[in-house]
């Protein structure tokens, strides 16, 4: 219990502290918005640079963007289906890109260099508000997709193949956003905590493998989120063949 001989400048764990901004009657988490603006800015910068001069022979950033587009289209087409995927590709793609850049930005950008009066900057997806917002958007998206494509016949989905499924399918509508949001939130927060704790204990070298693992899980989480969103939308627009 001896006090530390010197003040460690590397890491102090701050869990659940936020930089509050007052917005009318409501409070919002300033650090989440700050880091999300950085993330969105980086994303938009890459996109604007890459699409400035589109050529038939792609080069440089356009190549990267086309690779991403192709990758996202394959996800959307595989899970939503040939007929409806075009309408939902931007949504699925934006989810993937936003989550992916958020996760990697949280791990790769040296946020610690910026001092906030309270809380600390990090991946926007390490905040439960962000992940619940994304998950609720997915829920809205698949309801909207199903209703706009099939009208009220969408609700046949709840009693197929048999009406016994009705309670389970209703429960599913609640568990889908819950699992989506908590999976992403838990993984990213846990990754940041593990890295922070390791960096606190052994500041050199030792956290590196965990950081690489964190990058890996971050990418996987983005892929899982986008894939599940696409799968839910695909389920909603799927036509039963009688």
């Amino acid at each position, binding site marked *: 219990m001896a006090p530390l001989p010197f003040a460690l400048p590397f890491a102090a*764990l701050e869990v659940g502290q936020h930089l509050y901004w007052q917005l009318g009657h409501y409070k919002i*988490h300033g650090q989440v918005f700050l880091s999300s603006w950085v993330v969105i800015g980086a994303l938009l910068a890459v*996109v604007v640079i890459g699409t400035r001069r589109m050529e038939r022979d792609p080069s440089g950033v356009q190549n990267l963007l086309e690779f991403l587009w192709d990758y996202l289209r394959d996800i959307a087409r595989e899970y939503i289906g040939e007929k409806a995927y075009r309408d939902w590709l931007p949504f699925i793609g934006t989810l993937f890109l936003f989550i992916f850049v958020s996760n990697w930005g949280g791990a790769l950008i040296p946020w610690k260099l910026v001092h906030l009066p309270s809380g600390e900057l990090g991946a926007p997806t390490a905040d439960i508000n962000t992940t619940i917002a994304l998950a609720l958007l997915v829920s809205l998206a698949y309801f909207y997709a199903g209703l706009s494509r099939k009208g009220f016949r969408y609700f046949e989905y709840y009693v197929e193949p048999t009406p016994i499924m009705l309670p389970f399918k209703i429960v599913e509508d609640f568990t889908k956003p819950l699992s989506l949001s908590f999976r992403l939130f838990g993984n990213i927060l846990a990754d940041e905590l593990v890295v922070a704790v390791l960096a606190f204990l052994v500041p050199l070298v030792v956290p590196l493998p965990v950081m690489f693992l964190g990058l890996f899980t971050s990418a996987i989480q983005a892929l899982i989120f986008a894939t599940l969103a696409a799968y839910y939308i695909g389920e909603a627009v799927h036509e039963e063949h009688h």
Partner: protein
Amino acid sequence: MTSWLLLAEAGATAGSPEGGLFDLDATLPLMALQVVLLTFILNSLFFRPVGKAVEDREGYITTSRTQAKEQLAQAERLEADLREQLRGARLEAQKVIQDAEQDSDRLYREAMAVAQADAIASRENARSKIDAQRAEALGALKADADRLADLIVARLLPAS
């Protein structure tokens, strides 16, 4: 060594009374709005232009490939045509050669036959001439011999 744990706990519980990991507030709807906006912005800046570029290229590749296939088919047709023509020409040439060979053979045989006939004729001619001359010579010899014999007989007999 437990100081960091205490510190973490202090961060989680103390600090501002409304803090915490599961602190839901207006961040949620604003973030949702932000992501929806980002979706529309990325749709117009990224998904539509890149999709258009990729699909234009796919279209270009498809039409180029169709054109190339057509050209290939045409070239193959032309090649088959030319091959057919070449075969015909070759056959024709062979026939011409064969004809010429037969012609020359025939001419050779004819000339040969004529020459042989000539040779035989002149040989027969010569032989008959020789025979005639020989017969004539023999006749002359016989006459000479008879004369000489008569002469001899006439010279010897009166002496006896």
